[in-house]
């Protein structure tokens, strides 16, 4: 209750002093499209990680970001995504013994 009251009082103070601040509409949101796509990728990874396994999830996530968002050529993006997924899996799961989820076909 004490913490909730502190938060409430501070929030009211922020609102009261907010009139002199910058308006929401004036804030630049130029990175908005990228931000939505990146957050979408985070949501995808949270949903897919234990269903499809680490390697497949990371491969698809990186491929999606590089091809759809960064407009990289698909074979460059696929090579990078595959290399990253396999290399990090080998480093963490095999060498450092950090258990990472395996998807269908134990991939």
């Amino acid at each position, binding site marked *: 209750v004490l913490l909730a009251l502190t938060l409430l009082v501070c929030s009211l*103070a922020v609102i009261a*002093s907010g009139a002199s601040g910058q308006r929401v509409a004036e*804030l630049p949101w*130029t990175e908005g499209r990228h*931000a939505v796509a*990146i957050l979408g990728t*985070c949501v995808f990874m949270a949903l897919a990680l234990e269903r499809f396994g680490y390697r497949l999830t990371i491969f698809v996530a990186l491929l999606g970001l590089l091809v759809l968002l960064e407009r990289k050529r698909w074979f460059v993006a696929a090579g990078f995504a595959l290399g990253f997924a396999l290399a*990090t899996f080998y480093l963490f799961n095999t060498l450092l013994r950090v258990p990472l989820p395996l998807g269908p076909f134990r991939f």
Partner: protein
Amino acid sequence: MVETLQNLSSGFATALSPAVLLYAFVGCVVGTLVGLLPGVGPLAGISLLLPATFGLSATNAIVLLAGIYYGAMYGGSTTSILMRIPGEAASVMTCIDGYAMTQKGRAGAALALSAVGSYVAGTVSVVGLMLLAPPLAEFALRFGPPENFALLVLGLLVLAYMSGGSMAKALAMAALGLLLGMVGIDTMSGFFRFHYGIVELGDGIGVVPTAVGLFGISEILLSAGKTTKTEIRTPRLRELMPSREEWRDSRGAIARGTVLGFLIGIIPGPGHVISSFVSYALERRLSKHPERFGHGAVEGVAGPEAANNSATSGAFVPMLALGLPSGAIPAIMLAAMMIHGISPGPLLIQQQPQLFWGFIASMYVGNVVLLILNLPFVGIFVNLLRIPYSFLYPSILAFATLGVYAVNNSVVDVWIMAATGLLGYVLRKFDFEIAPIVLGLVLAPMMELSFRQSLAMSAGHYGIFVTRPIAAVMLGIGLVLLLLGLRPFFAGAWGGRAANDRAPAPRQQEEESRR
């Protein structure tokens, strides 16, 4: 004194063991990279790499993380001097005269003086840490639960006061962090609170996914989509030697920066950032030729660089002696210690002498490693800046997900990372300081425990916090800071729109460092 030297020699025995030496080296290399790459600050770097330390011993983990922290201070100066891009906020001041020296063809000298200043400050301030932390811890052994509670409250208030923006915003963020810290099983009654049916929240909201989300993911969200093309210049080895005049001019600045940085670093707040600003202002004020500042004055490079490195050692004093983190980075390191089963607090030095003295000695070793890394190998590191950000940020995102998942093998942590990433992005857009959230989250269990133990001691009377002298003094100081911090708000409410005039310095620094 003899005892201190004996402890230090045993610390060197630990620090010079191959494993600790290796982790100090890895930490320094990673820290230099983290400092170099714009968009990956020391906070995001440490948060992202924290899960990788879980398989290590506590000493190795702390040595690695500390290496990243002070390594980033060295690395940040390189891009500031060569390209006018501060790798992290503490290097903003180095850009001004460092880049001016580069334009005059003195890039090598600027890099050398910055590295030597950082080395001297890093080494000397470790002596301060070594001499100050044990007696402070001994004094803090007199503290009971009310004093501990008052100390934690004071720490949060000082951080909010020093944060540079609105104190109401900083306090709101600290309260939010404390509220998040209430989630999970109550340690005194065993009651499972605020879980909303999610069993994985039994241990509370994790510090790692929250820190990775708030600092790492929000940074990616803010900087993604921005393309910067910069010319990369690498000085030759023979150009690194400063002239006799440059050495002479920088000596005093390094000495003053060292003392100033250490003292500011002890105070809760972004000490490494504030100290570099104060050092620059001080050098300009003391200079006989202030007009040279902004046009390549060596004091403007050596002073702030010494100050920000010294502040990192200063920040470890309250963390190691009192278990009180002075900012978000020490808070994450404190969380790392807790993950490794080490209870932070005044008893740490007595109970874990190997960790404490090994850590101190590793900082001496780490500073030598960094001096070597940042001078002859500067060209190799600078070339890493050629990696396009469009490939870098997806890799960081994937690595963050891996790290966060690996903590508990739980997807809930990945969801927390995504949610706090969004929260951090929105809050930073609206000029809120996010460091108090992490600090609140880390301190919440300790604060709640000492608060409830105090009330148990006094049979529920709140007067215990003002009748015990040490607690009363600390809370009194906190109250004064609160009133001072909220003064612009009252002035605005009563006397027009003078409120919110406190400079939004950290935001400007962040914007500049992202550019």
